[in-house]
């Protein structure tokens, strides 16, 4: 896949870019030399090319700095590309009033060939065009020295940019952000993040679980003891009855009491059932309820609620052509009937209200019936209590007469009942779930099972959250370590691959002296039989090394990219320029070189021999700050201008 620059143009941009169009043709030559004097916008053009390709966000000040003069409000820079044979035009539209820069793309393939907002290059290419990579092929001459400089990291940065290793750094930062987010979320439940904090939470949960085990054990022990005591009470009751029955007179009285008690229990049960049945009919519960039901029923009758005509009736009527009164129904009547139908209830609503109304009207009850049941019930309950007292009194009399055995049995029964009462209270304290009872009994999670369950749940949630958070943070740490290792290992492999490719190129182009890249460590470390590890290469060789490195690197890009360079030889003396001019043309598929007239000698004239594949363009200033584009070698050679005069 190939990307070629086919031209660019500018409007209302400062310097000579007020109105300039460079056209390299649909099938541009391999090498283009654009001769532009200093001060006419070479650096600006390079920057605008870089920004347009990356869609850079410009600050309002940066935009306004591009303004040709105060008379213009808008400006434009457009770069034309051919990507795999298809034409794309990327426009940077400048609005000097609000300081904005917006990007638009015109694609030949787009419907109607119109402009669409944003940069719309093929996806793979667009992902590749990051500022750090664009810098490598819209090339700043100074970068060549930086690539060589071991104290800088340009060479490795370039490798990282091309192979997308920066994504690993983005991933690491994303992990940090996720871990922080998780810790912040978990902080509302537990602040523990470290091992010690988690141990503390685990101990705290264990403590609550031990408390629950203890409470369960207590409950089981208490219940077992209560069951024993119940049996003991029954036995003691039986023994007391048996002891009392040894006296014939007492036996007859006890039998009567027992018999009556049984009768009373039956009566109480029957009355309870009758009372419960009455209670289930609201009008029987209290006269107030009966009165309210009847009042509401009466009110519905008085107000004639619900309406007997339903909304359905009117909806049906609206479909008829004639009203029930015989008059015709036209569109106006139909509309009015439909609209007003909504004011009436639906048939099912009328039915339910009528059902309730009927029930209310027929509601009747005799609250006196319940009162009578309760009166009888109270009477039976009182008698039951009296019988119990009678039985107690008989026992007391017998003891008073000196029955020590009975006294002992009753004392045992008393102790048994007392313990049962205490244990019942203990069970209630242990088991009650009623929040009001819990408060009034002043139980805590250490003394009540329900509260202990809630405490365990809360502590487990804290521990779970803290454990998950810590585990999440640890996983994040491992993941980051892996990413670092992957990044480091990848960089080693890629660096070695680029170094080897660079050296192969250097072998071909520097035939007179064997110069090799011995190491890429931030910058490029060179070695040669004659120069030692620290350098001593000529400036031309140095530039050749930098370009060899770049071409080796860019050769692996998914697209073959053009190489655009500003003043590639300006700092070199003439001899070196010739060397560079001879060396670098073979590196790139398309090279666009901005040169000044002083670079012609030595550098540009190295291209003169390559007749067919070179294009020469000279940008010459004319009046009013405008420029003239002069194509051809002759114009290129003939152009004379004092540098710095513009």
């Amino acid at each position, binding site marked *: 896949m190939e990307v070629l620059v086919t031209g660019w143009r500018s409007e209302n941009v400062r310097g000579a870019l007020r109105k300039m169009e460079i056209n390299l043709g649909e099938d541009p030559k391999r090498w283009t030399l654009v001769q532009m004097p200093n001060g006419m916008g070479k650096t600006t053009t390079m920057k605008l090319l870089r920004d347009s390709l990356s869609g850079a966000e410009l600050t309002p000040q940066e935009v306004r700095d591009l303004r040709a003069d105060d008379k213009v409000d808008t400006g434009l820079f457009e770069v034309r590309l051919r990507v795999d044979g298809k034409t794309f035009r990327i426009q940077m539209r400048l609005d000097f009033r609000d300081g904005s820069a917006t990007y638009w793309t015109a694609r030949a393939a787009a419907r109607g060939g119109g402009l669409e907002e944003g940069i719309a290059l093929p996806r793979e290419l667009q992902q590749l065009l990051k500022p750090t990579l664009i810098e490598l092929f819209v090339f700043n001459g100074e970068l060549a020295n930086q690539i060589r400089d071991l104290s800088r990291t340009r060479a490795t940065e370039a490798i990282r940019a091309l192979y997308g290793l920066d994504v690993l750094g983005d991933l690491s930062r994303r992990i940090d952000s996720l871990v922080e987010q998780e810790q912040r979320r978990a902080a509302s439940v537990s602040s523990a993040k470290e091992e010690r904090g988690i141990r503390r939470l685990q101990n705290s949960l264990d403590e609550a679980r031990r408390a629950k085990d203890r409470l369960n054990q207590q409950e089981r022990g208490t219940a077992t003891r209560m069951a024993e005591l119940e049996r003991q009470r029954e036995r003691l009751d039986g023994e007391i009855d048996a002891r009392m029955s040894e006296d014939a007179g007492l036996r007859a009285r006890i039998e009567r009491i027992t018999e009556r008690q049984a009768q009373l229990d039956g009566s109480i049960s029957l009355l309870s059932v009758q009372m419960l049945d009455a209670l289930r009919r609201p009008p029987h519960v209290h006269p107030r309820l009966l009165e309210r039901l009847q009042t509401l029923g009466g009110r519905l009758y008085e*107000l004639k609620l619900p309406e007997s005509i339903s909304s359905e009736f009117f909806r049906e009527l609206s479909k008829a052509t004639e009203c029930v009164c015989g008059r015709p129904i036209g569109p106006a009547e139909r509309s009015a009937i439909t609209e007003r139908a909504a004011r009436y209830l639906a048939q099912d609503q009328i039915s339910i209200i009528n059902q309730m109304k009927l029930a209310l009207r027929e509601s009747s009850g005799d609250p006196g019936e319940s009162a009578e049941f309760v009166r009888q019930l109270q009477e039976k309950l009182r008698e039951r209590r009296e019988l119990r007292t009678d039985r107690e009194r008989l026992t007391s009399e017998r003891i008073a007469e000196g029955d020590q055995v009975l006294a002992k049995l009753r004392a045992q029964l008393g102790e048994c009942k007392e313990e049962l009462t205490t244990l019942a209270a203990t069970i209630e304290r242990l088991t009650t779930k009623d929040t009001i009872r819990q408060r009034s009994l002043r139980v805590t999670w250490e003394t009540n099972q329900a509260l202990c369950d809630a405490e365990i749940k809360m502590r487990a949630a804290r521990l779970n959250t803290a454990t998950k958070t810590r585990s999440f943070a640890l996983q994040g740490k491992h993941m980051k370590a892996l990413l670092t290792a992957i990044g480091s290992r990848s960089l080693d492999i890629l660096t070695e691959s680029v170094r080897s490719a660079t050296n192969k190129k250097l072998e071909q182009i520097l035939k007179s002296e064997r110069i090799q890249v011995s190491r890429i460590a931030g910058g490029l470390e060179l070695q040669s039989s004659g120069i030692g590890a620290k350098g001593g290469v000529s400036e031309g060789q140095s530039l050749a090394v930098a370009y060899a490195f770049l071409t080796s690197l860019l050769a692996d890009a998914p697209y073959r990219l053009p190489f655009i360079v500003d003043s590639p030889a300006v700092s070199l003396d003439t001899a070196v320029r010739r060397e560079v001019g001879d060396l670098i043309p073979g590196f790139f598929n398309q090279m666009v070189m901005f040169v000044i007239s002083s670079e012609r000698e030595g550098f540009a004239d190295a291209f003169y021999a390559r007749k067919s594949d070179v294009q020469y363009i000279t940008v010459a200033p004319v009046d009013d700050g405008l420029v003239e584009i002069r194509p051809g070698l002759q114009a290129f050679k003939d152009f004379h201008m004092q540098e710095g005069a513009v």
Partner: protein
Amino acid sequence: MSFVLPLNARDFFGFEGQKAFAKASEPRRDAAARFLMFDAYYCCVLLGLDGRKLGDENKLEPDKFFDGYPEAFKGQAELMAGLLVDAELSRLQVAPDDRRRIEEEMVRLLDLTSATRLSEGGDRLLNRYAVSGFERLRDAMMQPDNLEEFLVGYHALWNSEQ
């Protein structure tokens, strides 16, 4: 929606599973076995409707315990709906002759197709009346040991506030 018990009502009526007054110290008889969980709910609702005061929805159990009315309450659904309409008209201070508002309230609260004869909103309100009724019950009487004690105490409660 249907019927939801107020929180702690199960404990108050001594329910163990479906058995009320399960810890009664008196020997258990058939009568206690006939006291349904719905009876407990109904006793609370009647007191709440009588007081015409809504309770806090947060003081209800999370889930319903019964749909519709049990067989023992057959024919009472319309009367309960009537008591709810009466309580709401009073709570919302609807004038006795405001025909339109009364009709609107009935439409809001009633639903022919529902087992309770109430709309979902009506069910929800009835449950909230049960909450206020339960609070009134618990303020007035100790936790009953057995059914007969409860019945006597409940009757006394209705008659103590005439």
